[in-house]
């Protein structure tokens, strides 16, 4: 029982002192409003290259919101200090609450749409953390997630709307767009932009069909509910619609949507309020109802509606926030918020009772309160508009329900016989008593001291309806002087209050209709998402190789067909450079022979030889087509591969014949081959673009001091790519690390038949091959060679030693452990790029120095360092594999 805890009623604690911050802002704002005429505007450069600046502009409408944000923020912090005293992690809530306040200030003062969007989304994000503050409670987590998804999703729609507005008007400025009505109205993209804007604003302001998240967000602590979900954040949608109202007020779609959705929301939420038993949720429903009324008022085309929006918005904030505080006080003192149990609390909680009655007075629109003025202005706006009958009666019902809800919150729970279980209930702490009283009193005060606030509200209304006579904030006729709307509303409201229980029971019978509501749709979508993801993952990521290949081949065929179709079914019958190239034909025949033979060979050694034939054929093709570097690389790789693979062959044992769907596989393979052929044939029929090749050839010598263009591309022009590639090679060796373990201590000597002759020459051959590698490395920049080819020669040398003497001696002859060597290589390549950075050029810009040595200068550069890095990286990584494979064989025999 929290009421029994003496500490819970102790005076204001740390949190309350944070109220100084918003209070200071509030005071500065009031002083500024008195001293400096509106609008205030300015800009701070932020991302000039994208045209995004922190443009801010405060005229009367934002000023009104700023007063509410800082003013109510002050009492919210005061209240939170009492409400959250002795709550663990309250500091986290204060922090997020401050961030939220900053984001709110950002939304209403921003003039740049993208800045506004950022702050808008920030309010959604912070609201997620605030609603989910009690994160151990599953319901709170679900509510927080729901609020986040709905409002963030709406925010995305809003961003799209903003981009469309920008494309239509060419401006990111909110007030410029609000003044470009004719331009917007003439554009065909306007309906799409408006639809997106509506989604953004309706989600934030909980309009039908997005109304369901707001009552659920009541699982937040009460200070949060009072601040976010009644006074400030949920009014952002209203704010934005009001800001843009001048541009669209004359449009039929604007009026139809806003009046329609607003009326539906207001009436439906008022009905749903009758179904609730939780006092806080009843208030939340009535908030949704009020937001619907505001939406409807914005949609009204007449000038008087602007003042009605402003006045009602202000009045609502001033009575709904205290009522939430009252609900929080009751919850805090009694431990329940259910109106089934709450009665007669006035004897135990007199201060809270006074606050509730004052706020209830304003909510019911009774005299002496600002709510009375607001209701009268709203009534005037309605009578000035040409409303459909349904809307008029709907509004009458909504207003009457407001009276009934006010009566529930201010009379029902405080009067009547008190439950005996509440005997020990005591009034809450001062930090919680004062805030509702303060705001409720402010609501009364503005009725009696109109001089301070009225000019600002009228100015704000003029922002919504520029150049129009918005009317006065005054009561048109005194209370009780006749049977006017106010009195009729009051009478119906009293009747609704009397029949509350009966209506509640009757509506309870319709609960089964909830299955079809938007909340149910939301839940179904949320539940369906992981199912779709799981289905999609299982369909695509099933882990069966043939399935992946099938997909790849299908994509290849589609790509080939699409390319062919786009290019107009070309055929390379007249490819001139192909004539008389018998050398290419010979190489291609080697490739084809190996490829045709491979699938039919069951013996593994024979299969490897067939693949080797394809490799050597490719090398020959490279050589004949003017690519000596590539040809050398391919030769070296093929040699190493055949050596390595035959070494590992025994590990795979005898080949068994498995039953396979070979017809299906052959068809798939044929399809892949056909797709490749179509793609290639189409490519060769089209003219080639040699601009890149020409550029590299022309700049190779003057800029990179190299005559071998291929090597220059690898180590200089595209050095960053190469750096990435050797890093991949290094990481593949790291991935095989677990497979390389135990290289040292499993050495058992040579068990294969000894090759005496080879043993004699191997030691010498090793050093000769390394010398050749060094020579290839050094000459690579100007002649065929370079780091990759040199490394493959070195790998072959290592493999030779490993075959003849065993893997361990081979490893001992390496300068470092293989993977360390590879890592050092990548590091060296990285370091070679740094001197360029030091001299103020981009990373991997190579530097050249000429060392005067004899007659001709000897050229020295960071390129050599880079190529050396490539050499070590590839040598280390591939040597690691070769040693591991050979070691694996040793272990097995």
């Amino acid at each position, binding site marked *: 029982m929290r009421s029994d805890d003496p500490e819970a009623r102790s005076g204001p604690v740390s949190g309350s002192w944070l109220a100084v911050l918003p209070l200071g802002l509030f005071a500065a704002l009031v002083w500024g409003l008195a001293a400096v005429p509106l609008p205030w505007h300015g800009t701070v450069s932020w991302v000039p290259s994208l045209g995004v600046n922190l443009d801010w502009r405060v005229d009367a409408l934002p000023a009104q919101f700023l007063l509410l944000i800082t003013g109510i923020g002050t009492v919210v912090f005061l209240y939170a200090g009492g409400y959250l005293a002795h709550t663990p992690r309250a500091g986290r809530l204060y922090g997020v609450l401050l961030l939220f306040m900053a984001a709110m200030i950002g939304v209403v003062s921003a003039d740049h749409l993208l800045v506004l969007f950022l702050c808008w989304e920030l309010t959604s994000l912070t609201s997620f953390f605030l609603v989910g503050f009690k994160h151990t409670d599953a319901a709170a987590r679900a509510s927080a997630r729901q609020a986040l998804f709905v409002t963030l999703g709406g925010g995305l729609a809003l961003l799209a709307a903003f981009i469309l507005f920008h494309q239509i008007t060419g401006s990111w400025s909110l007030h410029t767009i609000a003044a470009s009505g004719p331009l917007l109205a003439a554009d065909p993209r306007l309906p799409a932009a408006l639809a997106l804007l509506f989604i953004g604003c309706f989600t934030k302001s909980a309009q039908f069909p997005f109304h369901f998240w707001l009552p659920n967000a009541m699982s937040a602590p009460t200070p949060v509910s009072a601040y976010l979900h009644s006074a400030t954040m949920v009014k952002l949608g209203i704010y934005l619609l009001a800001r843009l109202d001048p541009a669209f007020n004359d449009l039929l779609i604007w009026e139809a949507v806003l009046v329609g959705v607003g009326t539906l929301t207001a009436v439906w939420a008022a009905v749903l309020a009758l179904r609730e038993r939780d006092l806080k949720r009843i208030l939340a429903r009535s908030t949704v109802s009020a937001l619907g009324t505001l939406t409807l008022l914005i949609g009204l085309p007449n000038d008087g509606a602007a003042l009605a929006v402003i006045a009602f918005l202000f009045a609502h904030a001033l009575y709904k926030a205290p009522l939430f505080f009252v609900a929080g006080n009751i919850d805090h003192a009694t431990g329940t918020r259910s109106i089934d149990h709450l009665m007669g609390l006035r004897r135990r909680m007199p201060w809270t009772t006074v606050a509730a009655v004052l706020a209830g007075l304003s909510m019911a629109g009774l005299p002496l309160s600002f709510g009375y003025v607001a209701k009268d202005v709203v009534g005037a706006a309605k009578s000035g508009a040409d409303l459909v009958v349904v809307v008029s009666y709907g509004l009458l019902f909504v207003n009457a329900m407001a009276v009934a809800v006010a009566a529930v919150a201010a009379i029902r729970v405080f009067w009547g016989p008190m439950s005996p279980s509440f005997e020990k209930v005591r009034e809450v702490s001062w930090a919680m008593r004062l805030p509702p009283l303060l705001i409720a009193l402010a609501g009364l005060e503005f009725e009696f001291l109109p001089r301070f606030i009225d000019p600002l509200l009228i100015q704000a209304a003029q922002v919504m309806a520029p150049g129009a006579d918005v009317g006065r904030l005054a009561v048109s006729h005194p209370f009780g002087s006749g049977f006017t709307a106010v009195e009729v509303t009051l009478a119906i409201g009293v009747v609704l209050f009397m029949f509350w229980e009966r209506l509640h029971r009757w509506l309870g019978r319709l609960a089964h209709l909830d299955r079809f509501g938007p909340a149910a749709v939301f839940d179904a979508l949320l539940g369906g998402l992981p199912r779709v993801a799981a*289905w999609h993952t299982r369909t695509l990521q099933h882990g069966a190789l043939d399935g992946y290949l099938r997909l790849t081949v299908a994509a290849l065929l589609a790509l080939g067909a699409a390319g062919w179709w786009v290019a107009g079914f070309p055929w390379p019958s007249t490819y001139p450079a192909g004539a008389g190239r018998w050398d290419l034909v010979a190489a291609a025949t080697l490739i084809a022979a190996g490829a045709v033979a491979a699938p039919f060979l069951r013996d593994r050694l024979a299969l490897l030889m067939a693949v080797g034939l394809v490799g050597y054929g490719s090398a020959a093709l490279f050589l004949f087509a003017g690519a000596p570097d590539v040809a050398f690389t391919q030769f070296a790789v093929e040699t190493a591969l055949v050596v390595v693979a035959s070494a590992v062959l025994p590990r795979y*044992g005898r080949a068994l014949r498995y039953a*396979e769907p070979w017809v299906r596989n052959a068809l798939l393979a044929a399809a892949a081959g056909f797709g490749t052929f179509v793609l290639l044939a189409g490519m060769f029929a089209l003219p080639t673009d040699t601009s890149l090749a020409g550029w590299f050839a022309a700049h190779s010598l003057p800029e990179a001091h190299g*005559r071998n*263009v291929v090597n220059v591309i690898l180590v200089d022009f595209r050095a960053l790519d190469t750096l990435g590639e050797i890093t*991949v090679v290094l990481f593949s060796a790291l991935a095989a690390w677990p497979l390389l373990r135990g290289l040292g201590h499993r050495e058992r000597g040579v068990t294969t038949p000894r090759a005496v002759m080879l043993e004699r020459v191997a030691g010498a051959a090793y050093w000769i091959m390394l010398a050749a590698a060094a020579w290839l490395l050094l000459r690579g920049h100007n002649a065929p060679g370079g780091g990759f080819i040199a490394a493959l020669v070195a790998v072959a040398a290592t493999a030779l030693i490993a075959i003849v003497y065993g893997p361990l001696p081979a490893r001992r002859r390496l300068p470092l452990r293989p993977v360390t060597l590879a890592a050092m290589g990548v590091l060296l390549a990285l370091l070679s790029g740094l001197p360029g950075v030091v001299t103020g050029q981009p990373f991997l810009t190579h530097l050249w120095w000429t060392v005067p040595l004899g007659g001709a200068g000897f050229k020295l550069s960071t390129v050599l360092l880079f190529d050396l890095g490539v050499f070590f990286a590839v040598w280390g990584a591939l040597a690691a594999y070769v040693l591991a494979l050979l070691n694996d064989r040793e272990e097995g025999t």
Partner: protein
Amino acid sequence: MILWVLMAVSIAVAAGVYLALSRDLFRVVVGLALLGAAVNLVVFAAGRMASRTPPLLAAASDAPAAAAADPLAQALVLTAIVISFALLCFALVLGARLRRVSGSDDVRAQRAAEPAAVDPVKPPELED
């Protein structure tokens, strides 16, 4: 004539795909290597193979030869060959270990690591 070259490349692709679809682990590895080599050929063919002259600048002149081969395709293929070799080595090591651990070189027998799904959303749990 060029069509024969292109056809040879396509045959290599088809052979690679066919071998990779096999149930024999070794044939799968070799098939992937063949497929990789064939794709390298496709990339190389994008340089058109029009010239026999390597893209080297003669010592006598600083100007590039008028009809040298495309250096860009060569640079792409050169690194691709080395990476394919690293991948192939990795696959061979992995395959050898896999065969020793599972005692089979049937690709379908290796599917034990991915049991059939029971729950519509949660992934199946692996047995230790």
